[in-house]
């Protein structure tokens, strides 16, 4: 197992290098704003543009820029400075990470708390009115874009502009360490909004998995052995149905930790996603690179953790 984990970790670095290479290539090969020109003001001299180009290190060959960047990232954990603001990218990402983690963890808790019971009840009561109702609701939630849902929820339920003022509104985020209650208050609505689509998706997935598992031979065998339906469901059915959910969950958490751009934008939560969004708007390559690498890192790591968790959840994987 240890050698497997080490192998996977080594591949993680290779993958991150590939991701950064692709980001670099996209930035240089596709039409994009010249950062030096963008920073030079509207009446620049050619000298000023070259001056800025040199300052930003853009006057060096692309492969040199890339090699230097990789050296800084992997040897010094240095992501460079923002072309736009001059801020240290690593510091900025680290500063914004708690907001993104807060949003992600809370949303995961909310959507799993909603999806698990709904998915299981729908599977058990398949074809019932309750099943139809919850699955229709799930379909609607999946169909609602998070940006739209966020705006509508703010217009309906935020305390400053909502018709039914219940939750804290846009731009109210407070760090957990500063004011735990305000943190909780500010994130309740974003959690619900972000979780809505995921909860619906997971409920549907869990339902279909459980329906499939409950028709397996080993479930019939368990029933034939005289086990109670409750024991069959929890001991054998749920365990088998939840394994694929763990895979997807791990990847989703990884993706969200890389930044929930839409949710962070609509609620003005100063997380990594909003930071990435700002960087994309201004062709700020070091920030784009940094946020993409962080996102890729989380996805790869979560993927690894999922694979390890699999081994514990499913004995067949362990054996293979």
């Amino acid at each position, binding site marked *: 197992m240890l050698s497997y984990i080490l192998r996977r970790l080594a591949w993680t670095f290779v993958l991150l290098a590939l991701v950064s290479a692709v980001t670099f290539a996209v930035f240089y090969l596709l*039409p*994009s*704003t*010249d950062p030096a*020109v*963008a*920073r*030079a*003001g*509207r*009446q*620049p*001299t*050619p000298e*000023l*543009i070259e*001056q*800025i180009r*040199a*300052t930003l290190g853009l006057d060096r060959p692309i492969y040199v820029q890339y090699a230097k960047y990789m050296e800084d990232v992997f040897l010094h954990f240095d992501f460079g*400075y923002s072309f*736009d*603001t*001059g*801020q240290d990218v690593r510091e*900025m990402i680290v500063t914004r990470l708690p907001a993104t983690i807060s949003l992600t963890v809370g949303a995961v808790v909310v959507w799993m708390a909603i999806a698990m019971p709904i998915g299981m009840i729908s599977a058990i009561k398949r074809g019932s009115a309750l099943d139809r109702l919850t699955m229709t609701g799930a379909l609607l939630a999946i169909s609602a874009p998070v940006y739209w849902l966020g*705006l509508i929820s*703010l*217009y309906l339920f935020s305390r*400053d*502009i909502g018709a039914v003022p219940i939750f804290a*509104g*846009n*731009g109210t985020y407070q760090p957990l360490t500063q004011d735990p209650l305000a943190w909780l208050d500010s994130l309740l609505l974003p959690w619900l909004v972000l979780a809505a689509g995921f909860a619906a998706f997971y409920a549907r997935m869990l339902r279909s998995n459980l329906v499939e598992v409950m028709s397996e031979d080993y479930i019939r065998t368990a029933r034939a052995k005289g086990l109670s339906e409750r024991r069959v469901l929890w001991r054998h059915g749920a365990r088998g149905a939840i394994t694929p959910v763990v895979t997807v969950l791990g990847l989703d958490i990884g993706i969200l930790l890389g930044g929930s751009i839409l949710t962070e*934008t*609509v*609620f*003005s939560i*100063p997380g990594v996603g*909003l*930071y990435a969004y*700002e960087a994309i*708007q*201004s*062709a*700020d390559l070091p920030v784009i690179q940094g946020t993409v690498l962080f996102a890729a890192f989380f996805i790869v790591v979560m993927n690894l953790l999922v694979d390890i968790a699999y081994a514990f959840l499913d004995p067949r994987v362990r054996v293979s």
Partner: protein
Amino acid sequence: MTDSSPTTDRRRRGTRVAALACAGALALALAACGSGDNDDDNGGDGAGTPVGSPTTSEGYSAGLPSDAQKKGGTLKLLSAEAFQHLDPGQAYFQLDYMFVFAVHRALYYYEPSDSEEPIPDLAAGEPDISSDGRTVTVKLKPGIKYGTVDKNAAINGKEVTAADIKYAFERALNPSVPNGYFAAYFTSIAGSDKAKGGNISGITTPDEHTVQFKLDEPTGATLAKALVMPIAIPVPKSYAAQFDAKQPNPYETDPEKQAFSGPYMVQDYQPGKSMTMVRNPNWVAGTDSRPAHLDRIEWVLNADPNVAGRQIFNGTGLANGDPLTPATVRRFARQAKDRISFSPLGNRWVPLNTQKKPFSDINVRKAVLAATDRRAMQLTRGGALTGDIATHFLPPGIPGHEQAGGAAGSGVDYLAKPSGDPALAAEYMKKAGFASGRYEGDPIRMVSSNDSPAKETALVVRRSLQSLGFEVSQRSVDQSTFYDMCNDIAQQRNIDVCTNFGWLPDFFDGLAMLNANFNGASLSRVNQNPALLDDPQINQAMDDAAQIADPDKRAEAWANVDRMIVEHAAALPWLWDKQANVVSKNVHGVIAKWNATWDLSYMSLK
């Protein structure tokens, strides 16, 4: 420049032109509420200080100060954008200017009620321009002090001196303080061509309160006008040199470290998130005309613009930090007229490539100007409240506007009908050698932004061109790419039409409005002259006008330049923009007309 919406355009352009770009957000929204109003929104006559909250004759807020404003309280600004540059040596953007002029003082300053004539701020009086126009001398008021957040900083409480002004100019040529407009207005300072952040021999300080600019050219009048720009904000060398030696420059990245001479200072700055400004205890109120009513100003950056508009509408103590969404403008214009103000904001035009066929032929250009439906173009941006249909290039408020014909224009026939004149256009095409009155040649290349409402405006232009027989090969790109293409000389040469260009003046003067856009001397690698206009007579007229100190003669000279450009039909002027700004019900908003947005030093709570 092109249009944009705050929701889609947050690019850091490093230019004030971006402010005009963002004003595109008003578009589409206002046709419904504008109803063709002739919203001459200046309200009062600009003289004196009215009592109460002044409104225009249409009921909109005039954005003027009043005697009834109260002291104290906190104002929160909601901005969809973040700052571009916070170092006064680099600031060159509407949002940055709001900040910079609240925490610093420049040599000269525009009062909210009058943008044509700046008043002395750090300066003790008008700039003294020598008779040959080659020397400009400015005396400083004594007793103005710096304040710093770090009370132990050596500069805290020290007096502003002429040497600090000299250093402010010198550091603008330092690679760690890349200034975007020095080349446009200050290269005539002797010795500046060789400076790289060190001494500029042409700037001297005969005594602690006198700074003198010696110029290689007789352009003292232009330099004097440009002393309202933030480059004329003092930066003490003894304190800032340590920062300027670093890259990135902490004077830019950590604005809490700046030496503040204005009424406020930065207490806290979270890049991309927020900024908190508090009173500067060392601000010497007696030397400043600004009242600085507020105790505290908080900025929320990267706020969702749709939500921010509603928050301002419903909430208290709030104002917009940058241009608004159409929905917000519509809501305020319909339901809270006394809380929305409109301010003139530069112009828009469609440049035609004067150096490439078919538009190298003046008659073809005149035909395009005659054929284009400017009223339809205005409607794509939202109608009359977003701006008036332009008839020439100097917009209202800029000296020379009236002399160039005012709203009616100079009287050329090809701009006489705002909705277009197909018959006249056909006549000009015939004069250009197209007997049918329609173009018969290769397709032309047009570049436009794909943001709304720029893309809608581009459609009108395209339709007009097609009505003249042009086959239009249109490339619709994102706003950043649009800039890159239409400002890059290599690409400009292959483009026939760049739609949705526009300009916001750096200061209220004809030169700041016309020189960069139409002087052939500006045609460097990256330039703002997409028409590639390089007419010796126009160039000479601009160079001559730049040397005139007398305000009336100068205005007349730039009006003449304006008329020449119109007669040259180098571009289609189609809109004189206005920007909307809104406040919560308990906020008294005061507009800095020169920046078309709030003057924070005059804002207050009610």
